[in-house]
């Protein structure tokens, strides 16, 4: 049995669910009917509590869900949605950065390029993927792969999930800013469609670099921010502890961003978040990605590129 991680606001649900587990284990010894009824009752109660909590998550709670350690990450989506996946590595200049995954594969019958931030799912993989915080090599790899996709007429799907680009001495030395700028530039320039799906955190320039897409999709409880709530709080209030305030004021939820026309589609998550029903979220995400890709069937490369330009130029002009 998997041990579930609960967020602080999920405490009542956690209590109910642990009680259910306790009763279930009792049931093994004693086969009385009353326990079965009690379990059923508690399960209903837990379900309602979960539904109610998740129906009105605050931006800060969404931030926590978006960062949930059990939340499916880029590699999970690739595994579930992409057949014949061949991972491709390296920027051909300096190094391989595993914070950004890339590769080619077949998605719903068509060959595509996949890029995405990978945060890792346990200590070892988190370190390996640098918590999804890419260095210049990661963005330069993304550029290399996007150009490759363009040359072979392959649509690009990008999974966005990063707290931001890595702030370190080496990253600065090798031109972090330039690498991000070139990657955004490349996203805007390619003549194949790009569909971006924010699966967790879309953090700042590090996200924009691979999320500047024809269509930007977001999972219901994911966030997309100009700076992480912590960073914004330390800029605005000189106190990173006020991250909650920053999250609340900055309009970072999929719902707010959709209302402002910054993203195109919201994908609803299973009750309790994507991690509670991986099969369901993968299926739905796949369907929505496919639908988004279909919109570009029959369009010329130049039309696709121009559509992307027009979309971003128009952004914010009609608020």
């Amino acid at each position, binding site marked *: 049995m998997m041990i579930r991680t609960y967020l602080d606001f999920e405490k009542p649900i956690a209590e109910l669910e642990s009680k259910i587990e306790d009763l279930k284990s009792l049931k093994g010894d004693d086969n009385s009917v009353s326990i079965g009824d009690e379990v059923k009752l508690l399960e209903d109660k837990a379900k309602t509590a979960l539904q109610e909590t998740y129906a009105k998550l605050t931006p800060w709670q969404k931030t926590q869900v978006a960062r949930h350690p059990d939340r499916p990450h880029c590699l999970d989506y690739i595994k579930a949605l992409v057949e014949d996946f061949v991972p491709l590595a390296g920027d051909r200049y300096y190094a391989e950065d595993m914070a950004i995954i890339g590769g080619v594969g077949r998605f719903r019958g068509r060959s595509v390029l996949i890029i995405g931030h990978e945060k890792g799912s346990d200590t070892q993989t988190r370190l390996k993927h640098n918590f999804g915080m890419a260095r210049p090599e990661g963005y330069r790899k993304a550029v290399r792969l996007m150009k490759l996709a363009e040359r072979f007429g392959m649509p690009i799907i990008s999974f966005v999930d990063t707290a931001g680009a890595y702030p370190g001495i080496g990253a600065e030395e090798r031109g972090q*800013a330039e690498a991000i700028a070139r990657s955004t530039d490349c996203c805007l320039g390619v003549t194949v469609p790009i569909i971006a799906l924010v699966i967790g955190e879309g953090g700042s320039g590090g996200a924009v670099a691979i999320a500047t897409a024809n269509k930007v999709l977001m999972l219901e409880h994911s966030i997309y921010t100009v700076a992480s709530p912590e960073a914004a709080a330390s800029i605005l209030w000189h106190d990173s502890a006020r991250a909650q305030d920053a999250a609340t004021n900055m309009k970072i939820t999929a719902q707010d961003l959709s209302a402002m026309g910054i993203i195109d589609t919201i994908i609803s998550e299973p009750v309790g978040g994507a991690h509670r029903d991986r099969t369901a979220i993968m299926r739905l995400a796949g369907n929505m990605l496919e639908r988004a890709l279909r919109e570009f069937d029959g369009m010329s490369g130049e039309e696709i590129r121009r559509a992307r330009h027009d979309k971003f130029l128009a952004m*914010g002009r009609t608020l």
Partner: protein
Amino acid sequence: MNWINNVVRPKIRDFWHKREVPENLWVKCPETGQMVFYKDVEANQLVIPGSNYHLRMGAEARLKSVFDEGKFEKIGLPEVPLDPLKFRDEKRYVDRLKDAKAKTGLEDAVLAGLGTLDGQDVVAAVQDFAFMGGSLGMAAGEAIVTSMLKAVEKETPYILFAASGGARMQEGMLSLMQMPRTTVAVQKLREARLPYLVVLTHPTTGGVTASYAMLGDVHIAEPGALIGFAGPRVIEQTIREKLPDGFQRAEYLLEHGMVDIVVHRHQLRETLSRLCSLFMERRELKRRVEPDVPAEAFSASETPRIVVDNPARDLPQQAANDPGTIALPSPEKAAAE
């Protein structure tokens, strides 16, 4: 003095006669601590005579320093929504904007103008760090986009003086989206084959460096300017180490291949002028010669597509030259647009 000057209330009069000189007549060099007479510094293009420290320059002064006789035409900007998020931190964002406007006399952090530099038309834009840290919000982004498109329309080089702490937090994602928006405009300059010269001044960091400020054809930096993605404080907090001397300074970026030249402010105008004239030479030649002269006469490998009515002009470089690219738009389609 006529009678109206005596009638107008003093406050309004103050508004008309803005102080040209800052309150303190003396400035302290941030590097050496030396005290210098402000007038001397101002006469020296805001470079401290002894230490050569480059002080920040306001947008208006900067544009005047570039254009011939200090004359230029301001580029009008489309209006943007004010305070779209109804944001408030320690202060209301609308109040912060009001203060910044009063302090700088600017509408927002970017001022752009059209004028001549040694006789050739150029568009230049300046980010003023005094306006909320030169932060990139919707108004500033729009100013960059509009002025770049103006350069495309007028077929002039584009010069950008960057100075910014990054995105404007108070506008949230609408601020972040200025990164791709300005990048679209950079691509339009590139498609039109107009030189885009970036002058990185102290300090340029964050979303500005991670978009249009690092996409120039030539990157010039002023001596000592801090240029980077993450601010030094953020990096120190992340890695918990002291940063090396000179880290993220103009000279360091030069050494690491991120800028082309570090130029003293006294030589800046001449450098910009020289670059503009070199990059524009073929276009100028072509403009002077009869339009029916075959383009090959000027070109070895590439044909400059500069005739305004040429429908092929808008085709992206790559799609036109790379036979491997799929879906080349048909010439009819391009012409129809």
